[in-house]
């Protein structure tokens, strides 16, 4: 939970990451801004292909350089721009100050090394003067904190001897072993069963409250976000379409996409109403060939004809903390100015033909 | 969806599917056996949807495959249209297969990447046509028109019929799979987690499609999922499975308003609900420990290790099904005093 006056840990402005492929340039992330305060849990929600994982990897500078590249933007972490520091300094940040948990715990742990080796390696990489014994005892402490029974013995096991949920806990323990300020969790529970998911989410919440670690939780599950996050960003086709505190976004979703998402999830507690589920028409967009201007307009049930397909929608603050990018909230002035511009562009294109 | 005096279209009685693990090097005394499905029974009535829900490893996929006879059941009966599919001849199984079709989970792996959409959907028709098992012999033109009809019915543009599966998105591929399952006009469709691999917005489209098709064609669904909200939405009746056994079965509305078995309760409380207020007010029952593996032999209740309300009796005796309400059965020793034994147990 956040304090109104807690300071900003991470401030992302205008981040753009593009991938060069055989079929064209993929604009995986196309200009996003968000901030994370100390102790806050931010949820980034979106479907597959919207760019949430790429955002994540861009912040940590883990994008493979061919074919991807962060072409623009600023990632201010505790005063330094992460996109501009050297690789060596970045290594100091990764794992130490910002740590990540990945989706598939099976593949993120090295199957050839014991857990102890991997955890000790993490600690000693960042704190050079810690002895092996001390690193070991700290690791055992962390494992106990995350709730692994018999931690003293089990630390010497190999990853395949743990179940999926246990492995994810080990990952969390590793991520927290250096007292990071920010934890980025990339779909941590998608591969897990519901009951195990509940356990892991409870654990992340504990970490957030007790150790005051800020958490960025990336997921496509709206239920998880509702239970865990303070603020929510909704992404679509590489752009953030709505940003708001959780309560507001679920009660008063402003963007038609958010609205559609929330309504298309079947609700267990409202078992009486069994009409047709609201569904967003169409398919997720083809990332190479995005629809012009607002990427959601072909599927939008509230699209304004002639406007959404020709002009980029403006960003508006509905409240002090509720932001939405949609023409539904544009002023008439903005609309007419944008239409004029679009007409001018079209005329010049036809003239040049 | 009333089934008062109807006969069930599909009856499963005491189905068991055990996979032997071959012992390595002869060092083990006894060959271990994985009890994927360990004695389940249920009935499906025509025109309704039965949902089977459970976590991974509980045996739901194996159940469905055993019913479709893709995996040979170790024992038990699967009675469809009066015949036991486990004991029937090859020819009769082929005839029965016309009426039981499957939709698979992974839209990427369930379509042959080297066949066009048209060939994929037409394949069941071609197979049965060649063996002269269709009610009417179909000419190639008739097959072609039927393929186009099916594509339109599931919401695919028929101009795409010469394309390959990898050119479609996940939701569209699942539609192709549904079209293929409908090709032979089956009566029962076994759906093995058809929406688990899809995005939320596409999931809603497919669920709507399935409901429409059920209304239009009078289909019976056996729907497997691990997402409780989806099961609740689409099913009339629900069975909850745990480690190869059914622990509770009831009508879906009843299950969510009045769960009885401790596992069901835990499952329902663990599933997240997309409403922050409701989430905040909930008290979660967090189960301790991991999902155990299905190769251990159980003397007592399978859920004993993780149950928050265990009793001594549970350790050594497997609980039978008790009737808690109309169409609501549960297998738990706690109910022994108050409720009578279920019909099937007597």
């Amino acid at each position: 939970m956040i304090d109104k006056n807690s300071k900003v840990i991470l401030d992302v402005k205008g981040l753009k990451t593009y991938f060069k492929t055989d079929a064209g340039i993929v604009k995986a992330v196309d200009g996003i801004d968000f901030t994370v305060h100390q102790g806050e849990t931010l949820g980034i929600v979106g479907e597959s292909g919207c760019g949430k994982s790429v955002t994540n990897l861009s912040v940590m500078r883990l994008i493979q350089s061919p074919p991807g590249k962060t072409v623009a933007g600023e990632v201010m972490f505790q005063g330094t721009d992460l996109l501009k520091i050297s690789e060596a300094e970045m290594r100091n940040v990764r794992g130490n100050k910002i740590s990540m948990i990945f989706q598939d715990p099976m593949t993120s742990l090295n199957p050839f090394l014991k857990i102890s080796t991997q955890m000790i390696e993490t600690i000693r990489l960042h704190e050079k003067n810690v002895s092996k014994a001390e690193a070991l005892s700290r690791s055992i402490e962390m494992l106990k904190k995350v709730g692994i029974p018999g931690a003293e013995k089990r630390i010497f096991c190999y990853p395949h001897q743990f179940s999926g949920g246990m492995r994810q806990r080990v990952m969390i323990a590793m991520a927290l072993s250096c007292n990071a300020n920010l934890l980025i969790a990339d779909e941590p529970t998608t591969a897990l069963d519901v009951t195990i998911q509940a356990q892991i989410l409870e654990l992340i919440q504990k970490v957030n409250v007790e150790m005051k670690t800020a958490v960025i939780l990336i997921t496509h599950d709206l239920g998880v976000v509702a239970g865990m996050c303070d603020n929510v960003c909704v992404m679509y086709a590489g752009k953030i379409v709505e940003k708001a505190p959780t309560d507001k976004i679920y009660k008063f979703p402003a963007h038609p996409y958010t609205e559609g998402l929330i309504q298309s999830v079947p609700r267990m507690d409202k078992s009486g109403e069994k009409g047709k589920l609201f569904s967003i028409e169409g398919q997720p967009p083809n990332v190479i060939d995005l629809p012009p201007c607002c990427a959601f307009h072909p599927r939008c049930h509230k699209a304004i004809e002639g406007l959404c397909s020709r002009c980029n929608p403006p960003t508006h603050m509905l409240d002090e903390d509720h932001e939405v990018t949609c023409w539904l909230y544009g002023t008439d002035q903005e609309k007419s100015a944008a239409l004029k511009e679009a007409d001018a562009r079209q005329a010049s294109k036809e003239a040049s033909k | 969806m009333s089934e008062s005096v109807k006969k069930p279209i599909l009856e499963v009685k005491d189905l068991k599917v055990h996979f032997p693990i071959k012992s390595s090097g002869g060092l083990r005394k006894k060959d271990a056996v994985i009890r994927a499905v360990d004695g389940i029974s249920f009935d499906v009535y025509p025109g309704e949807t039965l949902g089977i829900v459970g976590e991974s490893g509980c045996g739901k996929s194996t159940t469905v495959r055993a019913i479709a006879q893709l995996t040979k059941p170790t024992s038990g009966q699967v009675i469809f249209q009066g015949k036991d599919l486990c004991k029937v001849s090859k020819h009769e199984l082929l005839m029965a297969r016309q009426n039981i079709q499957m939709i698979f989970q992974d839209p990427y792996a369930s379509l042959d990447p080297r066949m066009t959409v048209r060939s994929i959907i037409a394949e069941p028709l071609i197979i049965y046509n060649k063996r002269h098992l269709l009610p009417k012999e179909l000419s190639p033109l008739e097959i072609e028109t039927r393929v186009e009809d099916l594509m339109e019915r599931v919401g695919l543009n028929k101009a795409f019929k010469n394309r390959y599966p990898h050119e479609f998105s996940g939701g569209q591929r699942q539609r192709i799979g549904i079209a293929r399952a409908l090709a032979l006009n089956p009566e029962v469709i076994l759906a093995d987690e058809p929406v688990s691999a899809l995005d939320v917005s596409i999931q809603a489209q497919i669920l709507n499609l399935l409901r429409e098709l059920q209304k239009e064609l009078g289909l019976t669904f056996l729907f497997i999922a691990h997402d409780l909200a989806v099961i609740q939405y689409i099913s009339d009746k629900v069975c909850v499975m745990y480690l190869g056994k059914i622990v509770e079965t009831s009508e879906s509305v009843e299950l969510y308003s009045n769960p009885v078995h401790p596992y069901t309760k835990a499952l329902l409380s663990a599933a997240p609900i997309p409403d922050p207020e409701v989430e905040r007010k909930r008290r979660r029952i967090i189960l301790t420990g991991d999902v155990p593996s299905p190769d251990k032999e159980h003397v007592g209740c399978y859920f004993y290790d993780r149950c928050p309300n265990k009793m001594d009796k549970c350790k050594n005796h497997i609980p039978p099904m008790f009737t808690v309400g109309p169409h609501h059965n549960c297998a738990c020793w706690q109910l022994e005093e108050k409720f009578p034994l279920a019909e099937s147990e007597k």
Partner: protein
Amino acid sequence: MKFTDRFKKQIHDREEMHKLNKAGRNGAKNEFNQTVQGNSLSKDAWRRLRKNKAAVVGMCVVILYAIISLCAGILPIYSYEEIIIDHQYLPPSLTKTAGELMLKRQLSEMYATSWRQGRLSVTEEEDAMLNNWITLDDTNKVWNWCYEEGEKQRAAGTYVFSASEQKKYDRLQDSIKNDIQVTINSVRWVNPENGKSYKLDNLDYDTLVSIYAKALGGIDEQKVRTSLETGVNSQIQTEVKTKNSESELTAEDIQSLVAMEKDSLGEDGVQAKEKSLAVDNINVLIQNAMTKQIKQEIKAGTNKEFPYKDTETLFDDINFKVEASLKNSRRYILGTDNLGRDLLSRIIYGGRISILIGIVGTITSLFIGIIMGSLAGYFGGRVDYYIMRFVDVLYGLPYMLLVIICMAIFGTNILNLFFALAMVSWLTIARMVRGQIMSLKNQEYIEAARSMGAGGWRIIFRHLVPNSLSVIIVYSTLRVPEFIMQESFLSFLGLGVQAPLASWGSLIGDSTQGMTKYPWRLVYPAIVMTLFLFSMNFFGDGLRDAFDPQSKNML
């Protein structure tokens, strides 16, 4: 339904299908105007292949070879029938004709001999140099030097031919200028009664006898028949003698064997032999007559342009096409071999055979391998066990030895060669296909096919094998060079392709004798073969990369 009605319905259906398919073939946009790219997996693979330059070059070279091999008949190269033994061992040259080369060789020989005899004036150092070369066995250098020195001296007038040398020289010059090669083909006889023309082979025995008699200048037909009979008898006798060359036969034994042979052939058989003998003799007569005629025309001074093609008639009724060319005006671009055969045409015809062996061998091994592999992979259990043990046993046998033994037992014709090579070459492909099928067997679409009632064979050949196609294609392009190499090895040992057929391997094998004196016989076939093998290998590598990436991740 009556036949005509059914037929009409079929046509109508086909038209309707065509309409339906046409509607589906146009590039479609999905419902939101986002274009859906239409690419099959093969098109994607082709796109990736195009980017790999080495593979594309390899593919072009392979296609070039294939085209040349197919069109070998119509290319302007010297065919096998026109072998001129005088032209043996001529070095390759683009500009000099055979005659000039033969002349040069003759002169070099003469000059070398005269150096030996001391008639060529050389300095002491040059003498020592020449002797040095001889000890080093560098005869080519000796001859070249002598030739140049001799020509220089002859032009300067300080060297004169001896009488015998002059005679040889003149004779050679004469033959170079005047020797002609005459080829006769399309020999047809025109029946004077109805004017129809027939090929000689299609005529009956009596007509042939009368033609032959006329061609010989009007001899009595009975004499002709007797001579043909005797001719056939001696043919059969020679055959019998070669068949029984180990045992000692008396004259009576031979006679009885010949009689037995004739009985087994029967009257028709004997007559057929006589017919073919007659045809051959007539052809030879025509050829000799034409040669004489053309030579006379040259002597008489009529200008004849060579090469000379015409249609002529001889002996009143026989039409034929004649081609005459100055024998020694040929140009051998790549030189000749020990029998005067043009190396270029041998390489091309040999290439045909080598490539054919590669392809046929690969296809056979693919066929057997795919069937065995898919049976083992799909059915598993005992079938798999026994097939794999069989494969293991065959793997253990030494491959080359098996092939050699096979060829030695069954004879060395080309069919046996194919059989021997394909016999144990299917093992690797069987294993690969089995592995691929076992991994694909558990995919969901196979389960889906089973749930639709598909039987084992349908699943194997409609689903599993097409999905293993990438592995199979890559393997087969890499196997073709292997086969060619194996066949070369066999030919080198003398067990492969037999003369007069050539293959690259046999060409290289034959050229090992006299490798230093006539290096072109080794170098050119080797270059051609190596180029082909490299290209196939690059192409195969490129194919493997093209088929490798997961098609799931395609955009």
